[in-house]
């Protein structure tokens, strides 16, 4: 009998993924974790980062925003603010966002008021991970 996981990724813009997969890996509140079929019931918050899954021996990668993850009866439910396939990441846009975030952080550190430091840092984190994912993982 074949053991499969049902992976569902849902965002406010609709369902991104609903597939039968073999393995799922992502970053939880307390570090990376992997899910194989037969995993125990599990709940965690998801951090900004990557979500990958193996299907038919092939790895697929997604960029995910923060959210929530639940594993129950071989069903992995992921609710995140946004999710995009690595192939769909716009590197140019991510690079522009990175430069913008760095600039804001520099200005905030120079003592300029009216700049939301935490927001700039979150933007920096998002952009960095997007670029990492896009440049490392896209099969050439």
């Amino acid at each position, binding site marked *: 009998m074949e053991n499969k996981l049902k992976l569902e990724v849902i965002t*406010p*813009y609709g369902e991104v993924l609903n597939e039968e997969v073999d393995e799922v890996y992502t970053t939880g509140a307390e570090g990376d974790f992997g899910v194989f079929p037969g995993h125990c019931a*599990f709940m*965690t918050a998801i951090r900004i980062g990557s979500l990958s899954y193996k299907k038919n021996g092939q790895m697929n990668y997604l960029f995910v925003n923060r959210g*929530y993850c639940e594993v129950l009866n071989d069903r992995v439910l992921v609710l995140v603010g946004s999710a995009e396939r690595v192939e769909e990441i716009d590197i140019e846009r991510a690079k522009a966002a990175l430069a913008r975030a760095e600039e804001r952080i520099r200005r905030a550190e120079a003592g300029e008021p009216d700049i939301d430091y935490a927001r700039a840092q979150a933007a920096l984190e998002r952009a960095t991970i997007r670029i990492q994912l896009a440049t490392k993982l896209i099969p050439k």
Partner: protein
Amino acid sequence: MPTLRDIRKKIKAIQGTKKITSAMKMVAAAKLRKVQDSMLRYRPYATKMQQVLSDLAGAVEARGDVPPLLLRRPIKNVEILIITSDKGLCGAFNTNILRVATKEIERLKKEGLNVIISVVGRKARDYFKRRDISLKNVWTGISGKLQYAHAQVITQEMINSYVSEAVDEILIIYNEFKSVIAQRVVVNRILPIGRIASEPTEQPVFIPFTYEPRAPELLAMLLPIYIEIQVYRALLESQAAEEAARMTAMDNATKNCDELIKKTTLVANKVRQASITKELMDIVGGVEALKQNE
């Protein structure tokens, strides 16, 4: 007495206006469909998340360990977030909401509370600026290109001021989309959350979940998302209501144009006939005069 040519010109002008209003109606209809579509796509995320959070909150509350965002405290400062549109030409959409908001502000002030106002949309900003009322936060440029990220930013700001105890309660006032012809102004409390609402499901089965981190901390991490959901829904509703209101307003404008054209055409015809009659009388009078001369 206007000349025939003046009246014809006026009719042309009204026809031009009619073309514009009917085009705007069509655009509003298309936008409304788009917003309704994103509301539909948003539903699974919202309901599922709400479900999860209410289960989690139930589990946590049973242990008597309630995170601060859920707790009420004595209220001194109230923040009101008013959602309007950026653009006008949408009937009484903005007027309605600002009227309710003003009433609500007065009511709260009468209770001796300090009211802090934040707004979404240019219309609300201009309204309070004209009355020299200072605003805490102003978000514009959202309507038309609403993103979930907008809700995240607004929520973050709200949580910050709530946690730092700058405000003790946050209300949100927006237009709810009931149907294309009906919008309703609603006032909702965003913070403190109080009880998490969720649609009743089948008998809750107790599942021994492994929580990571422990349930209370996990709940505290996820609660901001609950607020995001509420804010995003309010923004979506307001957007749909705005386009619906614009559609109705433009439809009425188009109908009014039709009526004006009819009326003015009637006047034009009367003027034309009057001038023909006058000319005829001149001719007849001339002929009579010639006859008498013979």
